[in-house]
């Protein structure tokens, strides 16, 4: 493909504008976190400071919200990953006639606005706990976890399903044939096979939960998570402490991503080493085998 110079310039211009649009706001926010004025300001730079980070960590509400968010994220992972796993396994086994209905039901939360999920969760559990005498369950944390689990489980299911469809059933049969019971096959064969997908599902579940606002703001009731505290702060007025929070989040994620990249490179290198070993063994074997008499 050889685009003309005009096209090339146009495309370059477009790319620059696109990324300016995409990254500009982030850069602006990042710079304002280190600038001294009370109101988030990029230019002029009156002076560099880390005060806003200090202010952020001194903010009691933010810190309680952060703890709550981490806590909820963890619970959502514990609930959504097993549900997503079960959902994916059922998807591969369910009768074709019912499959599309089942799919519709379990994927619908992905296509439902978050606030509706939050509202319906609160409405249902208020009635349900009231009528069954389990009022103690009508709690911000429980409702938030359940509400978020509805669509996060669907994300998890889609991730796990993609890997499950590549599962070789003869692995399962081999284990059975060697005397394993079904739960043993599940624990020893299927789960290890799905481990990478389960790990990515867990990470995605945690991140989705941690940054969720729409569902949480309804379901959390009188409690507070980082996002709901943040929303309150932002509505009250702009302070560079909020920019500082964004910088911290990006920094933490970058560190996580780099750590993952290093881990992945190591795993890839190990896999490549194994592949080389197999090739060498193969060559040695072919060279070493005596040619048997034909016929």
């Amino acid at each position: 493909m050889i685009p003309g110079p005009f096209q090339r310039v146009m495309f370059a211009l477009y790319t620059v504008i696109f990324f300016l649009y995409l990254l500009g706001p982030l850069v602006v926010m990042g710079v304002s976190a280190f600038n001294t004025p009370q109101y988030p300001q990029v230019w002029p730079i009156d002076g560099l400071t880390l005060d806003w980070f200090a202010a952020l960590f001194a903010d009691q509400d933010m810190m309680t919200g952060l703890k709550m968010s981490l806590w909820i994220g963890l619970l959502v992972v514990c609930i959504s990953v097993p549900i997503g796993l079960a959902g994916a396994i059922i998807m591969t086994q369910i009768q074709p006639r019912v499959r599309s209905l089942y799919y519709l039901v379990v994927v619908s939360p992905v296509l439902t606005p978050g606030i509706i999920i939050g509202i319906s969760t609160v409405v249902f559990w208020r009635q349900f706990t009231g009528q069954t005498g389990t009022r103690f369950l009508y709690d911000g944390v429980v409702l938030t976890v359940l509400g978020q689990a509805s669509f996060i489980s669907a994300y998890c299911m889609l991730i796990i399903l993609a890997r499950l469809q590549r599962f070789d059933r003869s692995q399962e049969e081999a284990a059975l044939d060697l005397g394993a019971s079904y739960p043993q096959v599940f624990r020893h064969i299927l789960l290890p096979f799905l481990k990478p997908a389960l790990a990515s599902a867990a990470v995605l579940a945690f991140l989705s939960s941690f940054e969720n606002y729409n569902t949480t703001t309804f379901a959390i009731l009188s409690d507070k998570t980082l996002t709901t505290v943040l929303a309150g702060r932002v509505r009250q007025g702009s302070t560079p402490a909020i920019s500082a929070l964004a910088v911290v989040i990006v920094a933490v994620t970058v560190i996580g991503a780099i750590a993952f990249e290093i881990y992945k490179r190591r795993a890839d290198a190990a896999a490549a080493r194994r592949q080389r070993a197999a090739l060498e063994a193969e060559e040695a074997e072919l060279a070493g085998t005596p040619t048997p008499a034909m016929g």
Partner: protein
Amino acid sequence: MNGSLAFIFGLPLAVVVLFFALSAYERRRGIATGPGFFQRNGLAVGLYLVLAVGFWAFFIILLPQLAMVDMSFRPKLPPAQMGGPKDLYTLENYRYFLFGSTTSTAEWNWLHIKAFFLTIGVSILITLINFAICYPLAFHMAQSASAARLRVLLLLLILPYWVNEILRAFAFRVLLSSGGIINQLLMGSGLTHEPIDFLGADVGLYMGLSYAYLLMMIFPLYNAIESLDRNQVEAARDLGAPWWHIHAFIVLPHAKPGIASGCTLVFMLTAGALAAPLVLGGPRTLWFTPIVYDRFYQAFNWPQGAAYAFILLVSCILFVLVVLKAFRLSLGEITR
């Protein structure tokens, strides 16, 4: 709080204990394989599958939705009267959406109706704009970018989405506020003498909304275009097809599922966005979700809020159906 924690920890714990108990039981008894569900999975795993999916499908997805729809047809009553003789099905909440309070003199509830249609209309517009913005880049990434450049582009794309929606909206507020860098630039260059009130004019809101969900458009597009054989495009070019022809008759039809998927997601997220309108909207901003929110936590009229939420849900479902119909696709093809 303690009781509830016991519940969310206790439930999985109970399931795990049950699982191991059944495993031990099954190890002692060989259970035949066969076509049946429990025969195929074994009792323990089978039970886990059924319970997990059953709880999810019914208690987390279906029943709450039903409860919300049910509530939307009930009057607002003090808790003592719930389930009492006055708790009858009514269309009052939907009537309110159209005509407003019975004491108001206006003929229609213009504020809410306008907010609703504005929300839907702007969401559709933002969906289209996002498609237009993302398509060239998605095509470039999928069809002509080198591997190294692709990695950089993907990283740059994901970067802004590591911070949450509220912070993304906040970034726009910093950018567009009257003392923000855009106004500084405009005034510095002499284009205007007074700062432009981007936020009050809702420019900030619309930009923020479009910005917030760019990624939801670009990734489905990229995935769909990526599966198109590069040779097909090359061949068309060799045959002398003009560039617009290649896109209209080769790339776009191939990317149909990705386009539908991206559009559905962006529309749904935009129409249901709550953070951006709260952060970027001014006092006069019309957006439907804050109105729904206020039904619950300002007016304390839950049935009415449920009705409003249901109206929003129905319009989202309609949108998905229209998209599916227009693209002649099934649901499974767009949720990959």
